[in-house]
Every structure is written in structure tokens, then in C-alpha cells.
């Protein structure tokens, strides 16, 4: 039976890894609490699919459970988690069926429709509408960036990785990282401008 009591202990990385190796339930709860949001952002940036990102993050934690004994502590624990997440996302992208699914999602569906309280001061209908439109445009803009460029771009923007780290993770050279990120920015800028123009003419 799983208990859901609140985790009040402060864990440092070494303690957490030790707890995970000992299959301590509290340590796994802490693992999820500390890292799920970070990993989810990376996964979402690469896959642009909320449901899949959730599944990927869950699978990452399961992999940790199964393979924690292989973590030798040569790098930071988070780097290890991040590498697993990125690899799983890249594997996901290689599966054409899933890629097909999200590429064909209707615009109206709008990934990430957060529920906000209507009529409040900061969310007047006009503000809300503009924000929703911008979100939709950004989302569509991100989808137009080829996956290899988007992955490098997201690792830079979301996780703040250096070009060297991105190069190592994606197994490409630093120059390629630089050009992919530059290309992603140009592409996103153009797509957003074009989508904004379309919106104005409609």
C-alpha cells in the first residue's frame, strides 16, 4: 500500500542517491518532487506533447528505479536524469506514428490550455484572448522548427545549457549547436511574424 504523507526532510544529492539505491520510498517521493517539473519542461520542449511528456518523465523515474545502481556519481545526479530524459525524448521523436499524431492536431485544441479564472482583474476576456492567441502562435511556431534544431534551442532556453554541453549530449560539434540554435531562432521569429500577419488579415 502506498502512503502519501508529506516529505519534510531536507535531502542533499548524496543522501538522495543513497536512498534511491536502497529503494527507499521517501527518497523516490523526493526524487519526483525535486525533478519532475524540470524534466517535464525539457520533455515538453522537445516533444511539444503534454501527455507524452508526462509519460516520458514517468518512464525516466522508472528507469532511475531500475538502473540507479549504474549511477557512479561521476557527474551531477541531475545531469544523469537530464541525459536519460533527452534520450527518451529523442527516441520518442524517432517514432513516426507519434510524430504524425501531434503534427496533425487541430489548431483550436491549443496545447496547454491552463484553466484561469475569468473576469478577474488580471484576466479580463481581452487579455485572456490575446494571451491565448499568443500561446497558440508560439506553439505553432515551435512546431515549425525542425526537431534537431528545436532540441538544441530548447536545451539552451529551458535548461540554460552551454553549447559544449548541448554538443556532448546530442553528439554533434559546437559549431553545429550554434548554427542549429541560430536557425531555430530565425525560423521561430519568421513563423511568429507570419502567423501574426495572418491573424491581422483575418
Amino acid at each position, binding site marked *: 500500500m502506498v502512503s502519501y504523507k508529506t516529505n519534510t526532510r531536507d535531502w542533499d544529492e548524496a543522501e538522495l542517491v543513497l536512498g534511491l539505491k536502497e529503494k527507499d*520510498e521517501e527518497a523516490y517521493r523526493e526524487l519526483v518532487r525535486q525533478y519532475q517539473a524540470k524534466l517535464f519542461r525539457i520533455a515538453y520542449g522537445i516533444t511539444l506533447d503534454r501527455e507524452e511528456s*508526462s509519460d516520458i518523465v514517468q518512464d525516466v523515474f522508472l528507469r532511475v528505479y531500475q538502473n540507479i545502481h549504474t549511477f557512479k556519481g561521476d557527474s551531477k545526479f541531475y545531469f544523469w536524469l537530464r541525459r536519460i530524459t533527452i534520450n527518451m525524448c529523442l527516441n520518442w521523436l524517432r517514432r513516426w506514428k507519434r510524430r504524425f499524431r501531434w503534427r496533425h492536431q487541430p489548431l483550436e485544441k491549443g496545447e496547454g490550455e491552463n484553466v484561469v479564472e475569468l473576469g478577474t482583474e488580471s484576466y479580463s476576456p481581452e487579455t485572456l484572448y490575446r494571451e491565448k492567441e499568443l500561446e497558440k502562435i*508560439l506553439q505553432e511556431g515551435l512546431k515549425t522548427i525542425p526537431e534537431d534544431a528545436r532540441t538544441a534551442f530548447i536545451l*539552451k532556453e*529551458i535548461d540554460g545549457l552551454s553549447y559544449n554541453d548541448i554538443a556532448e549530449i546530442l553528439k554533434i560539434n559546437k559549431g553545429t549547436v550554434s548554427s542549429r540554435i541560430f536557425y531555430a*531562432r530565425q525560423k521561430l521569429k519568421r513563423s511568429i511574424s507570419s502567423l501574426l500577419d495572418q491573424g491581422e488579415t483575418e
Partner: protein
Amino acid sequence: MKKPSRNCDPVMVSCFFDKELDLADDASVDRHINSCPSCREMLDELKTLSREVRTHITGICDTDHASIEKSLLETICRKKTPFGERVKEAVLSKKVWIPATAVASLLLVFFTVFQSPGVTEPSAIIASLSGDVSSIVIIETPRTRQTILWFNEEFNPERLDL
């Protein structure tokens, strides 16, 4: 947007924004940006784009992930359960026995309705009749007598004595 000059290098501006240039290049691009409205605008655009993308993705991902925690802990508990117990649980679980019963019923229906004719038996044609319109064959086996009747596809009504 201001027109870029020959000295403008958008890739360098992008690297400058990411703080990926060495000291000398960084200082040189910094000086250029301060004197070039086009590159300054480009840098501002990169800042805005970066902020918007981060806000967008963080906003989407800023949800409650309690289900992930619950599911992970349940899986861990399951994996901790001894193998024999897990087999017992699996066999008794509705997820197993309901589909198993359904499959067994389907197989039973299938083999009852579409069962093979069984062992072949000797048979003999004891009478046959061929006409312009149809033909008849009567076959006898040790247990049954069967009549087969079929119609000719090329029927010529002129040949009938009506």
C-alpha cells in the same frame, strides 16, 4: 527593422546573447552592438523571444504532477512485492480473468459454429440428372443422403418447350 550593415553578423549576435563567445569576440560584438541599431534591435528580439518561449513552456508545464508521483510509487511497491504474490495478484485481478473469460467464450463459439467437418466418409452418387435449367445429384454416405441442386448460369429459354 533597421537595415543591417556589412559588419553585422546575426550568428555572432545569437552567440553573444548566449554568452558563448570568447573574451575578445564578446568585447568586439558588444562594441558593435552599441554602435549598430540593427544589431541592437536583433538582440532585443532575441531577449523577447527567449522570455516568451520560457514563459510559454513553463506555463504549460506548471501543472500538478501528483499522478506521476502516485503512479511511480505504486510501481515501486508492486516491484517490491514478491514474485509469487505478484502472480497471484495478477491471476486474481479483473484485468486478467475478464479478458481471459471473454477469449475462452469466443474460442468456444468459434469452434462450435465453425468446426471442421471431421473424418471424411465414403460417398456414392446414386442418381444424377442434368437439364437445360438445372442439374441434380443425389449422394449417399453411410449416415446421410444428400441432394445437391444447382442452376446453369447460361440459361436459354428458347430451348424450353413452353
